[in-house]
């Protein structure tokens, strides 16, 4: 049968849960590790959010009110790093940990002990990032992209950041290998690759991307490190190096990275929308192929971040058209989601609201992306607030909203309780409103020429910045609703029924709620249709 190393087979773990702190420190159970990941990601989301509010407070009006420019730059840098590597990526890995084995009929993740390592590397890395605010010279201030030559200068905060990135890289590569091996080797009989839920497909392809590009990031920051301390000149023009080289290598990682934060979101909404539209996912096979082609294309577009570095026109044209090409498979996906809803008998519980919000707002972000891909236009908009608006539409309304959808959707399965639907809806409408208030005006600011990553600005930008700052404070406040809802519902929520969503028909809903601590210790025999829909299930044992 399918094998999980060091977990279900170890006698101490085979019956029930170990108690107290040991359960978490020595965790090898995929559900425990998933829970750890999710709480860690939430803590990072709050930390990064506090930095964002500090940034918006400074930008509420022109002039310097709260922070010196040095600290302001540290805040923007750490906000980006913490959100990308501390919040979004671990949250997706946590969800994959929790749900993948349940969705494909595996007893656990393939390497349970490595899984423990993948998680427990995260807190020290986060600690390094946070501590770097208090070292001489402060935290890294070169932007989350850590461009040379800014990153080859600067104080020891940069060294701590580089070290943290190494640790985070090792963690996410190990997590990704675990996902790939689990999906490839541990599927229950009858769950073929082309029957897998989209979330499993998305996690699989994302894991491939992580394995391919996180080492490249580790490599390029290592070059920065050797430039700083060991006398190399990779990025130092005076020594025969080339600072633009840094950007090429970074974005070879960086663009696939943005899809590492987008593909799992695609997977989540591809589960949520069919459930609440009570219709099968439209165009399952095309969804799989679209996801794969997005992943492959994402390796060929990196220089759209570099249109103003003096590339020759032929290179600009190549990267411009290649970037526009990505909009095609992305468009296929948006079409399929809408077609899934078409004539469905829809209900609008919180997960569905977040999923629909995702489709609408992510599409706006995709459109501004296509605008930015036009090299001639991008020369104007590069490094302006327009870019900030673009990537917050795809990352906040995209990745983050999909994560909220996922947490609400699987909350009953994870905890055995129902969350408060009223608070969930309030959380959605509140977030939707203030998200747009925060980020939509940034399009106008960018078009009017306001550069990003500045602590002070010209007077004509005042109004939109004030609006945006108010929006951000309110958006941040709204996340407390989410926190309260989660904590209160875990403690005092109503007992969840076995099948809280009428239209849910993937494997995780065929087992008891809450999911037993050891699920599928014996693999079930499945008959599965598209998108992981279970037609029949025999056997499968839990305890």
């Amino acid at each position, binding site marked *: 049968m399918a094998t999980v190393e060091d977990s279900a087979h170890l006698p101490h773990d085979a019956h029930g849960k170990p108690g107290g702190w040991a359960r978490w420190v020595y965790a090898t159970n995929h559900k425990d590790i998933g829970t750890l990941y999710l709480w860690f990601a939430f803590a990072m989301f709050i930390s990064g959010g506090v930095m964002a509010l500090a940034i918006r407070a400074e930008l509420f009006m022109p002039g310097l009110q709260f922070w010196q420019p040095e600290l302001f730059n540290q805040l923007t840098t750490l906000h980006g790093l913490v959100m990308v590597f501390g919040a979004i990526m671990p949250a997706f890995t946590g969800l994959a940990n929790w749900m993948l084995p349940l969705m494909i009929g595996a007893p656990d993740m393939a*390497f349970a002990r490595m899984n423990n390592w993948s998680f427990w590397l995260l807190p020290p890395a986060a600690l390094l990032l946070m501590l770097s605010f208090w070292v001489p010279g402060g935290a890294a201030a070169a932007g989350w992209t850590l461009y040379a030559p800014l990153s080859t200068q600067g104080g020891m905060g940069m060294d701590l950041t580089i070290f943290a990135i190494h640790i985070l890289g090792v963690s996410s590569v190990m997590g990704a290998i675990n996902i790939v*091996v689990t999906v*490839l*080797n541990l599927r229950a009989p009858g769950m073929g690759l082309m029957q897998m839920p989209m979330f499993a497909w998305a996690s699989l392809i994302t894991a491939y991307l992580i394995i391919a590009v996180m080492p490249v*990031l580790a*490599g390029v920051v290592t*070059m920065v490190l050797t430039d700083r301390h060991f006398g190399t000149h990779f990025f130092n023009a005076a020594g025969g190096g*080339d600072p633009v080289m840094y950007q*090429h290598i970074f974005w070879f990682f960086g663009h696939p990275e943005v899809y590492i934060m987008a593909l799992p979101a695609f997977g989540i909404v591809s589960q949520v929308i069919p459930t609440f539209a009570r219709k099968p996912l439209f165009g399952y096979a095309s969804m799989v192929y679209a996801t794969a082609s997005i992943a492959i294309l994402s390796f060929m577009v990196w220089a759209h971040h570099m249109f103003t570095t003096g590339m020759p026109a032929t290179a600009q044209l190549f990267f411009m058209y290649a970037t526009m090409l990505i909009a095609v498979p992305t468009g296929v996906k948006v079409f399929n989601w809408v077609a899934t809803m078409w004539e469905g008998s829809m209900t609008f519980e919180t997960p569905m609201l977040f999923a629909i919000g995702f489709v609408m707002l992510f599409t706006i972000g995709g459109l501004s992306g296509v605008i930015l891909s036009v090299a001639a236009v991008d020369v104007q908009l590069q490094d302006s607030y327009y870019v900030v608006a673009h990537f917050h539409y795809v990352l906040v309304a995209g990745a983050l909203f999909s994560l909220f959808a996922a947490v609400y959707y699987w909350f009953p399965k994870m905890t055995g309780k129902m969350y408060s639907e009223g608070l969930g809806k309030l959380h959605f409408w509140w977030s939707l409103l203030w998200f747009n208030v925060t980020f939509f005006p940034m399009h106008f600011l960018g078009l009017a020429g306001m550069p990003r990553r500045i602590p002070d600005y010209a007077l004509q930008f005042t109004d939109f910045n004030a609006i945006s700052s108010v929006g951000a404070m309110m958006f941040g406040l709204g996340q407390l609703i989410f926190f309260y809802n989660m904590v209160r519902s875990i403690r005092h929520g109503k007992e969840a029924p076995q099948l809280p969503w009428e239209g849910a028909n993937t494997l995780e809903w065929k087992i008891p709620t809450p999911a037993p601590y050891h699920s599928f210790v014996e693999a079930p025999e499945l008959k599965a249709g598209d998108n992981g829909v279970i037609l029949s299930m025999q056997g499968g044992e839990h305890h």
Partner: protein
Amino acid sequence: MASRTDNRILLRKFLLIALLMFGFAWALVPLYRVICEVTGINQLVKAGDAPEENPVAGVPVTLDFDATVQPGLPWQVVPLVRRVEGRTGEFIRVDYEITNRSDRRVIGQAVPRYLPAAAGPHVQKLDCFCFKEQAFEPGETRRFPVVFVVDKALPSEIGRITLAYSVFSLPGREP
């Protein structure tokens, strides 16, 4: 079905891929260089446009230096050379000596003038004390360099340029 060894084999394969990708990041450095060389993308200077043999083969131009002080102000401004025979395209440096002859701390700002005025746009100053305000202690004397190039677009009918500075006090700014 997959066994424990299957998992291990896959684990090793992916660890190897991760290591290879780490190496690939380093390989990108020479790779980009080769690609740029082959395609000529990063060649900022092409074979044809070698630098001129003699970058200063401009036309002769005579430069006079002068300075005036508004009546009643405590400044003394003296160019250390009065005249330079230069060429267009050549770096020229002259020094000015400025003294505060009062017993107060004063802040001054020098403003350049050109004669004929049409020569003004062609005098490209790289360094000049007129770029910013200068503070002087009582009785202090300081020397400042002025570095400039007269560019080659100078109209041919101008053979002689006078560069004159006026120094003003900035009264509101005095401590």
